[in-house]
């Protein structure tokens, strides 16, 4: 309002009204007001919670986590019984979430990249079909896909006693899940594992050597096949030398269900397939736009250098496109992980099913359980976005 007319004064005397009118101070005023309002709001919420808890005679405590859970969980990756404490049930749930998210991300990536590349294929039929796939999956809620997959399995597949035993006894699809062979680790399998690891290292060194050689002489070796041989042959060789230390346990119908082998439950399969197919559609779009963002000149330059199309893709386009593709890819991983919480709709025992589901219900500790569940997802999200930031920074540096 009143403009300070006294320019000769170097240090303006502070007046109260400057808190509002002076840009230098105004931000402080506003921030203090914000803090005050925020504290008031938080205080209000907390006082309500306290009051409500007192009215209901509840208390806020995490002690219940150490009491026996008293319920069973069907899919558990660690030792767990109904006598284990609630926190262990939560850990079982966390591991189930992570397994689902991890396998989901892998499947979605493979599918998504394949579809994204095929979407750009010059083959009319292929690219049209991929468009249909992408649009079809992206525009229907993922929960519907999950429910559909789950009902499909339980309605279309036979009960265990009628189930066909496929692949020489190795694979049995039933309406409860899929029975698959499971490895039995006998003595000597440790040696085999070490040999496998060594061959992996060997394959890696071979790759380096081959690249160096190509750079030096221009000779292109069939790297893929030789690597495959390096990885497989020694393991195969020692497998027989050591007297077949890894056996297979095949599922067998005993009593109500198949026993032995591995069992992949329908709930898991439904989630895994639906989440992967759904996320793949998004990844495919990212891949497509990443590839299309690389100017056509790059392809033409590579062609004019005489590179064949698949080498052009592998050596010229993809390395550049990856920079564009990877950040949205990582946020798709984040989405998939968060979507895995829909497990609760088909009874898969992830963290929302155990801690946020049965534990919450049996103990009545809604506040504590939900805080922990949200905390878990928050940590996972922050980790994933941390990875993304590191990646973005590393890419950004290379650009200069």
């Amino acid at each position: 309002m009143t403009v300070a007319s006294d320019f000769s004064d170097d240090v303006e005397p502070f007046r109260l009204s400057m808190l509002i009118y002076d840009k230098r101070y105004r931000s402080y005023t506003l921030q203090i007001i914000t803090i005050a309002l925020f504290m008031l709001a938080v205080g209000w919420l907390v006082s309500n919670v306290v009051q409500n808890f007192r009215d209901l005679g509840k208390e806020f405590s995490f002690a219940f986590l150490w009491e026996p859970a008293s319920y069973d969980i069907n899919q558990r990756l660690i030792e767990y019984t109904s006598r284990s404490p609630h926190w262990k049930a939560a850990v079982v749930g966390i591991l189930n979430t992570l397994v689902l998210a991890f396998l989901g991300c892998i499947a979605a990536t493979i599918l998504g990249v394949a579809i994204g590349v095929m979407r750009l294929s010059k083959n009319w039929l292929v690219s049209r079909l991929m468009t249909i796939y992408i649009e079809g999956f992206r525009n229907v809620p993922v929960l519907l896909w999950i429910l559909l997959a789950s009902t499909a399995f339980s309605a279309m597949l036979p009960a265990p006693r009628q189930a066909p035993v496929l692949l020489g006894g190795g694979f049995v699809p039933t309406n409860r899940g899929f029975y698959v062979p499971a490895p039995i680790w006998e003595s000597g399998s440790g040696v085999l594992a070490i040999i496998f690891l060594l061959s992996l290292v060997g394959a890696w060194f071979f790759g380096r050597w081959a690249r160096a050689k190509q750079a030096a002489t221009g000779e292109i070796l069939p790297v893929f096949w030789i690597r495959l041989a390096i990885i497989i042959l020694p393991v195969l060789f020692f497998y027989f030398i050591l007297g077949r230390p890894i056996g297979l346990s095949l599922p067998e119908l005993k009593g109500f269900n198949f026993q032995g082998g591995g069992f992949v439950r329908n709930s898991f399969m439904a989630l895994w397939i639906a989440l992967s197919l759904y996320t793949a559609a998004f990844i495919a779009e990212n891949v497509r736009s990443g590839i299309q963002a690389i100017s056509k000149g790059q392809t033409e330059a590579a062609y004019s250098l005489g590179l064949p199309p698949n080498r052009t893709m592998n050596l010229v386009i993809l390395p550049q496109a990856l920079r564009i593709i990877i950040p949205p890819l990582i946020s798709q991983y984040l989405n998939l992980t968060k979507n895995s919480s829909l497990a609760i709709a088909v009874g898969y025992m992830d963290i929302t099913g155990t801690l946020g589901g049965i534990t919450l219900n049996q103990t009545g500790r809604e506040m504590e359980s939900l805080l922990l569940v949200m905390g878990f997802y928050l940590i996972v999200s922050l980790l994933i976005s941390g990875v993304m930031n590191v990646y973005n920074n590393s890419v950004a540096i290379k650009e200069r």
Partner: protein
Amino acid sequence: MKTKLLTLALGAAAIATVSTSASAATLDDVKAKGFLQCGVSTGVPGFAFTDDAGDWQGFDPALCRAMAAAIFGDAKAVKFTPTTGKTRFTALASGEVDVLARNTTETFSRDVDLKFTFAPVNYYDGQGFMVRKSLGVTSAKNLSGATICIQTGTTTELNLADYFRANNMTYEPVPIETNAEAQEKYLANACDVYTTDASGLAATRAAFEKPGDHMLLPEIISKEPLAPLTRHGDDQWADILKWTLNVLINAEELGVTAANADDMLANSKLPSIRRLLGAEGDFGTKLGLGNDWSLNAIKAGGNYGEIYDKYIGPKTAIGLERGLNQLWSKGGILYAAPVR
């Protein structure tokens, strides 16, 4: 400026003061609303189901109707909220429903830890197992390795864990939210066994296309005293629930039915009947209701026996014998405190 800040502070303080206004008594709330909000299950034949007109009927809703009649003199002044085994307690604790009448087992932790007040038991039950006859299983002891459908958030899943552990058996639990889903899974053979309260099993089985293909195993592995409940902390409200139920049971014991209640009120000389129906004493007023509360409750759907027979009794498709739920005077354990 100062005045503005003052306004702001006042506004904020105003918000804060709202929070300190104590919650009114449930009865006052319910009267102000004009209807009773009653939590029932999502659907168990006989116990709680929607009729063709979309109205909730059954053994459990009948209690809520009686209670609504006791409060408002109108058995229709009630709205129903379907709840699953999982959502029922939050619905009650959060005040979404005023009373929960829904196959709920009274347990220590639900009473003391979850802070609910249980009315007397209105159905003595126990957990059973249902299997298809073709499996050839005759005892629960043969169930090792079976895939079992259970509703989550129930005592069922806890009992089951204990039972199988005690008998050194393994099983594959398939967690499910509602009775309807469980039935679907069970019929699709996605589980070998369905376990829940025996009454619920019988009711569910009765609704099957071929009930004869399925059987209940003889073992009853738990005590499931089912009782309606309210929140802790409002004794008056809990009393209304408790005594509405007691009135219905006492009415059966004293031979008061929906049809003869008015007549009994006018003509009965028996002091116990006169007290029950409000001809003597002012029990209703003491509860904060009208003195015709008990008469209305009985006339809403009849006494306990009438309700039982109408929805789940031997003459219905559900066909549950009274058994433990017979009056104490007739060999059961139903024993309601007297109105006096």
